[in-house]
């Protein structure tokens, strides 16, 4: 097992990633590879589905080396716990969703995002241990933005609104 896979596996165990799937997720059991319009999935392969060797995990781990000032004056180092929570969340999400891209703000806030022709979604891991989700659908022009705060990053139900935005037609089927 490579070091990144070993770390991510240990982190998901530590954060108790649930084995059960959320209601409605069953129909997405094979959907991850069917998000053909997703830029990142367009280059996914079997190793990303079975392992933890997608660049998103390596990038999240790399943020642990960031110290204050990493992005210029006033920028802050991230919380290692937030990084671990983000890794565990991503490991949980990868069974249901295309893999996201990692990001870090100059204030040290960890985030993930999906940017597809159908939708933009970003997640921030907030200081109180919860996460917030902002999403904007591109396939409709009215009431196409939503925001949810105080979501539990270890609850698989948190993935449902993301699934609904990333693939509304499949969820409605």
């Amino acid at each position, binding site marked *: 097992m490579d070091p990144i896979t070993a770390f991510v596996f240990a982190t998901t165990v530590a954060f108790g990633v649930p084995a059960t799937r959320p209601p409605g997720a069953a129909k997405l059991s094979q959907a991850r590879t069917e998000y053909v319009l997703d830029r990142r999935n367009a*280059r996914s392969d079997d190793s990303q589905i079975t392992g933890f060797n997608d660049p998103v995990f390596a990038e999240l781990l790399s943020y642990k080396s960031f110290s204050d000032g*990493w*992005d210029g004056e006033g920028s802050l180092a991230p919380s290692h716990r937030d990084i671990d929570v983000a890794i565990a969340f991503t490991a949980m999400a990868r069974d249901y969703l295309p893999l996201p891209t990692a990001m*870090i*703000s*100059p204030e040290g806030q960890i985030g993930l995002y999906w*940017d597809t022709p159908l939708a933009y979604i970003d997640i921030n891991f907030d200081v109180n241990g919860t996460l917030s989700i*902002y999403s904007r659908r591109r396939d409709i022009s009215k009431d196409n*933005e939503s*925001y949810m705060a105080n979501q539990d990053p270890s609850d698989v139900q948190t993935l449902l609104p993301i699934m609904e935005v990333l693939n509304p037609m499949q969820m409605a089927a």
Partner: protein
Amino acid sequence: MKCQDFFEENADNPKPCKALQKLFKDDEATVLGFEQSSASPLSEHGPVRDDEFLWRQIVNPTHFDVATGQLKVTAFSDVSDKGGSVNRGYADYQALVLKAEKRVADINSRRPDMQASLVGLVRLECDEVRAIRTPPGSDGKTLRGFIVLDTALPGDESHADICQIVSQDAHGRSVRSKLVELANRYLLKIREESAG
């Protein structure tokens, strides 16, 4: 309150956009009116007009997804607090590239571990930045997301700032994601630009 007075009062505030957001909640008209005058006494070209271009350096690979060639929304995080630095369209492009390269060299001399590199310059259109709005609230009202201010600096007369004026996290996330969407449309990567 006049624009210059506001910025003089906040001269030592590292996050003047937070102060703008607070003022905007109480007095939208005053904050929007700041665009009609210069924030800096050094200005020679006056307030930033709607029909101007705005150049933004993209220097940090941390805020750029190499796999997709797209900026991350964190590339514009500074618009929400200290202000997003841009240069006005009349600035010389080659001089801006040299300045950006110098900035990269400075970062790498201080923090070689960051391995900073110059991705390119974004050429935003001011009226498009000013047109970005929040989604409608329960009353159907939408809010301007940003103001663009003339903030001329010593030795950098064409300097301007994009300042987020909405304060709610939901609104900030909405308008910044739209700003980055614009920026991704107008990103000129340095290698491509040089080759042209």
